[in-house]
C-alpha cells in the first residue's frame, strides 16, 4: 500500500497539535516573561479547544471506516468512535485548565498545564489505538502524568500520599494488564488488535483457560482505570487528597479514554463470533462485566450515602457512574451494537461536562471556604445563588433528572440494556439510580434549606471562572435538550467503525 501522508495526517493531527502545544507551553513557561507565564493557562485552554475542532472538520470518510480503517502501519484507527472521544478529551483538558487557573500551588505553575496537555495526548492516542504496543504506550502516557498531577502540591502531605497511592495501584494494574497483553501476543503472534482475534479463532485448540486468564488480566487493568469495583480502592483517597482541579481531570479524562479503548478492545479482540474450544468468549466477558457493573454501582452508591466529605462523595459516585457506563459495554452483546456504543459515548460525553461542572463549582467553594465538608455547604444558596445553582445542575445531571444531560445519558444506557435482553440489569440500575438520587438531593438540600453560621458572608465568583462554569452548565442543559440528536447520532456512528 502506498503511503499517502496527506490522507493519513488528519487521523493524528490533534496529537501532533498537542505535542506542539506542549512544547510551546514548556518554552513559554521557562523563558517567558511574567506576563507570558500568566497567560500560559489561556494558551493551553484555547489551544486544546481549537484542536477539538480538528476531529470535527476532518471527519473520516464513511466509505472507508465501514471496512475498518487502519492508518500509520496499522497502529491508528481513524473512525467516528475515536473522533468523538478525542473531542471530549480535548474539551475536558481545556476546561480543566481554566478551572485550575486561580488555584494556589497548582494553577500558578506553568508545568501543570504542560502535564495536563501530555496526559490529554495519551488519552487521545488511547481512543484511536489499534495495536497492543500503542495501547500500552498511550495508557502510560496518560497515567504517568496523572500520577504526577495527583502529587502536584508537593508540600501537602495528603497530596503526596494520594500521588503515591495512585502510582502504586496504577503501576500494579499496568503490570497485570501488560502481562495480559503478553499472553495475547503469545497466542496470536501479532500485536494488531483485529489480528489477535483472527489468530485466536484459528489455531488455539483448547487454550480456553489461558485466553480467559488473559482477558481477566486486561479487564483488571481497565477496571483500575475506570475505578470499577473491586479495583476502586485508590479512588476515594486519591480524589480526596489530590488538588481538586486534578481530581476533576482524573475523574473524567482517564475514565473516558479507558471506556473508548475498552469498547474497541472487547469488540476487536474478543468479538461475538470468537469461540475457543467451543466456548464463546463473549459470554464470558459479558457475564464478568455484568457482575462488575452491578457490584460497582451498588457499592459505590451505598457507600456514598455515608460520606460527609464532598470529594469523597463524588469519588464514590464516580465509582457508581462507572458501573452504569459498564451497562452500555455489556449491551454490546445485543444484535444492535450501535445502541450500546452510542450509549457509552453519549454517557461519557455528558459525564465529562457534568463532572467538570460539579468539580469546578466545588473547587471554588473549597478555595473560598477552605472546607470540604458537606455540612459546611449549608446556606450556600444564600451565600452564592449561582454557585449553588451550578452544583445543583451538575448533581441533577449525575442523578439523571431532566433537563440536565444525565437523564438522556441514563436513558440511553437503560435502553441499550433492555434491547440486549438485560431487563434485570436495567431494573437493578434504576434502583441504584434512586439510591444515588438520595445523596445528591441531600447535598442540594443542605445548600438550599439548611442554615449555616456564615449565611451572610457572600462568596464571590471571579468573572472568567464564572463564565467557564456558566458555559459548562449551559452545555449540560443543552446536551439534555436540543443537542441530544447531533451528539447521539454522531455517537451511534461509532459502532460502524468497530
Amino acid at each position, binding site marked *: 500500500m502506498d503511503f499517502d501522508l496527506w490522507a493519513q495526517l488528519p487521523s493524528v493531527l490533534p496529537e501532533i497539535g498537542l505535542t506542539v502545544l506542549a512544547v510551546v507551553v514548556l518554552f513559554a513557561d521557562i523563558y517567558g516573561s511574567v506576563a507570558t507565564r500568566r497567560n500560559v493557562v489561556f494558551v493551553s485552554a484555547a489551544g486544546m479547544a481549537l484542536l477539538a475542532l480538528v476531529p470535527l472538520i476532518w471527519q473520516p470518510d464513511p466509505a472507508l471506516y465501514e471496512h475498518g480503517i487502519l492508518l500509520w502501519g496499522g497502529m491508528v484507527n481513524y473512525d467516528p468512535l475515536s473522533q468523538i472521544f478525542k473531542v471530549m478529551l480535548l474539551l475536558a483538558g481545556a476546561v480543566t485548565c481554566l478551572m485550575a487557573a486561580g488555584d494556589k500551588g497548582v494553577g500558578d505553575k506553568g508545568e501543570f498545564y504542560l502535564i495536563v496537555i501530555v496526559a490529554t495526548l495519551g488519552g487521545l492516542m488511547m481512543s484511536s489505538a489499534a495495536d497492543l504496543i500503542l495501547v500500552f504506550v498511550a495508557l502510560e502516557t496518560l497515567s504517568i502524568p496523572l500520577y504526577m498531577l495527583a502529587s502536584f502540591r508537593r508540600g501537602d502531605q495528603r497530596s503526596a500520599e494520594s500521588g503515591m497511592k495512585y502510582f502504586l495501584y496504577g503501576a500494579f494494574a499496568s503490570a497485570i494488564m501488560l502481562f495480559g497483553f503478553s499472553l495475547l501476543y503469545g497466542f496470536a503472534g501479532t500485536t494488531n488488535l483485529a489480528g489477535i482475534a483472527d489468530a485466536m479463532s484459528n489455531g488455539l485448540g483448547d487454550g480456553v483457560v489461558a485466553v480467559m486468564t488473559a482477558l481477566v488480566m486486561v479487564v483488571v487493568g481497565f477496571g483500575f482505570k475506570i475505578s470499577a469495583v473491586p479495583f476502586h480502592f485508590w479512588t476515594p483517597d486519591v480524589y480526596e487528597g489530590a488538588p481538586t482541579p486534578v481530581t476533576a481531570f482524573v475523574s473524567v479524562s482517564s475514565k473516558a479514554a479507558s471506556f473508548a479503548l475498552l469498547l474497541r478492545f472487547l469488540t476487536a479482540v474478543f468479538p461475538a463470533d470468537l469461540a475457543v474450544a467451543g466456548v464463546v468468549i463473549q459470554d464470558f466477558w459479558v457475564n464478568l462485566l455484568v457482575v462488575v457493573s452491578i457490584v460497582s454501582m451498588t457499592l459505590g452508591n451505598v457507600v456514598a450515602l455515608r460520606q460527609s466529605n464532598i470529594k469523597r462523595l463524588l469519588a464514590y459516585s464516580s465509582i457508581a457512574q462507572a458501573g452504569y457506563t459498564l451497562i452500555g459495554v455489556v449491551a454490546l452483546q445485543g444484535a444492535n451494537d450501535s445502541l450500546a456504543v452510542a450509549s457509552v459515548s453519549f454517557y461519557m460525553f455528558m459525564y465529562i461536562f457534568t463532572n467538570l461542572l460539579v468539580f469546578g463549582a466545588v473547587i471554588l467553594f473549597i478555595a473560598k471556604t477552605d472546607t470540604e465538608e458537606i455540612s459546611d455547604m449549608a446556606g450556600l444558596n444564600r451565600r452564592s*445563588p449561582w454557585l449553588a445553582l451550578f452544583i445543583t445542575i451538575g448533581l441533577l445531571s449525575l442523578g439523571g433528572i431532566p433537563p440536565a444531560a444525565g437523564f438522556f445519558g441514563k*436513558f440511553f444506557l437503560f435502553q441499550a440494556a*433492555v434491547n440486549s435482553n438485560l431487563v434485570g440489569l436495567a*431494573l437493578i440500575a434504576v434502583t441504584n*439510580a434512586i439510591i444515588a438520587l*438520595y445523596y445528591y438531593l441531600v447535598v*442540594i438540600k443542605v445548600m*438550599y*434549606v439548611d442554615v449555616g453560621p456564615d449565611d451572610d458572608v457572600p462568596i464571590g465568583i471571579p468573572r472568567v471562572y464564572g463564565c467557564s462554569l456558566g458555559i459548562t452548565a449551559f452545555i449540560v442543559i443543552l446536551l439534555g435538550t436540543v443537542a441530544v440528536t447531533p451528539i447521539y447520532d454522531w455517537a451511534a456512528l461509532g459502532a460502524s467503525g468497530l
Partner: protein
Amino acid sequence: MEATGFSILTAIIFIPIIAGVVILFLDRKNRDLVRGVGVTAASAVLALSLAVFFGYDNFVKTGGGLIERQTAMLESGIELSGAQMFADALAFEQRVVWVESLGIAYHVGVDGVSAPMVLLTGMVAVAGVLISWNIEDRLREFMAFFMFLVAGVFGVFIAVDLFMLFFFYELAIFPMYLLIAGWGWDKLREYAAMKLTLYILVGSVFALVGAVAMYFAAGAYFAGSGADVFEAAVASGILPADSRPHSWSIVQLTLAAENGAFGIDILGIEGLNFAKFWFPFMFMGFGVLAGVFPFHNWSPDGHVAAPTAVSMIHAGVLMKVGAFAALRSGVQLLPEGAETHLPWMVFLTLINVVYGALIAFRQRDFKYVIGFSSVSHMGLVSMGWATMNLTGMTGAGIQMFSHGAMTALFFGVVGMVYDRSHTRDIPSLGGFMKVMPWVGVAFVIGGLTSMGMPGLSGFIAEFPIFQGMWAASEQITLQLGAFQLSNYYSVLVVISALGIVITAAYVLRVAGQVFFGEFDAERFHDVGNIEMTDRIVLIILGSPLIILGLYPPIMAPMIESGIRPLIALLGGG
C-alpha cells in the same frame, strides 16, 4: 389530525420555563418585579389554557365535530380502532422530531381527558402565584422553581410522545422537592420532601423500564409481522409520514397494543405475558403519584409539609398527573394487562376511599384532614379507571378536574387560616366565619363539593363512578377460586358510598369547629380579613365547582369523547 405549525400548547409549556429563567436573573431585592413576572406568566398561561379548553370544546361539539364523528362511527357498526379514534381526538397538535434515530419527538396535543387538565393547571398556577405573594424567604428562587414545576406538569398532560411524558414527569419532580424542602413547614419538610421524591421516582423509573420494553416490542412488531399495519397507518394518515417502526409516539404504541404487539411472551417464557407483566409497573408506577393504596403514604406528609402554593399544585394537579399518566401509559397502551389487573386493583381503590376518609376524620391538624381527604378522593379516580366502562371512566375524568379545583381551594383556605392564626390545630380554632367570611364560604363550597352535594361538581363526578362500578360487575369477571368476586362490585359501591358519609362527617366537623363556634378574640386578635390576591384565588378555584355542578355539559361530553378510544381499546362498544 395534521401535526404541523406552531401550537398554542408549545407556548403553554415554554412561557413558564422562560419566565422561570428570567426570574432567576432578576435582582433578588426587587420583589415587585419578581412577583410581576410571575403573575404575568401565570396569567398568560391561564388565558392560553382557557383558549385551549374552549377551543377543544368547540372542536368536540360543532357540527361535524368529534362527537358527531364518534357517534357516526359507533352507529355504523364497523370495527372500532382505538388508535384511530385516539388520533382523531387529538387537537392543537405540534410535532417536531427530537431524536430521529430513536423515534423520539417533541409531540404535543390534547384530547378530551387532557384538555380539562390543562385548564386546571392554568388555574392552579395563577392561584399558586397569588397565594405566594407575601413569601419572605428567597421569593425569587421560589417563584422560579414554581414556574419550572408548572411547566413540567403541563408537559405531562399534553405529551403525545411517551418519552416526552417521562421527560416532563421527571422534570416536575425536582423543583417540587426543592420547594417543599426549602419553603415548607420546618418540622416536617426535609423528611416529607425526601420521602415524596423517592416514592415518586421509584414508581416512575420502573415505569420507564417498562416503557423501554414496550418501545422495543412495538418496534419489533412494526418492523416484522406488523409491517403492513404500519404502512396502512402511515398511508391513512394516523401516523405521520416520517414515522419509523421504532417510535415513542403514543399513537403508534397504541396501534401496536391494539394489534397484539404486546401479547407476546417475555424472554420466551410460556405464560409470562408481556402486557400482563408490565401493566402493574406502568399503572402502579404512576399510581404512586395518584396516591393509590398501598403507595399513598407519601401524600399526607408531603401535602402538610409543603408551602401552600405547592400543596395546592401538588394535591390539585400533580396527583392528577399520576392518575393521568397511569391511564395513558398503563390502560391505553396495555389494555390486555388492564383487563387482567384492574379488576383486583379495584379493591385497593376501595381501601383508598374508605380508609383515607376514616383517617381524615381522626385528624386534629387542619392540613392533615385535607391531605387524607385527597387520598380518599383520588381513590375514586382510580376506581373510575378500574370500572373500564364509559360511565365510570368519564366520572373519573370529571373527578380529576373537580377534585383538583376543590382540593386546591381547600389548601388555599388552610393556608390563609394558618398564615393569620399560626395554628392548624382544629380544636383551638373557632368562629373564623366572622373574621374571614370569604374563606369560610369557600370552605363550605369546597366541603359540599367533596361530599358530593348535587349542584356542585363533586356530584357530577362521583355519581357516574358509582354507577359505572355497579355496571362493571356485568362486564368484568374476577374469580377467586370458585368464587365469582366480580358479582359483588355492587357491595363495593355501597361500601365506598360510606366513604362519602364519612367525608360529610369530617367536613361538617371541621366547618363547625373552625368557622363557626366561639371566636377567641384575644388569641386571634391580629386575624383580619383576606387581601385582594387571596380573594382572586378563592374565586378562580371556587367558581368552576359551581359552574361545572350546574352545567355539566361544559365538560362531560368532552371527557366522554376522550374516554371512547379507551373503551374501544378495552374491547367495549
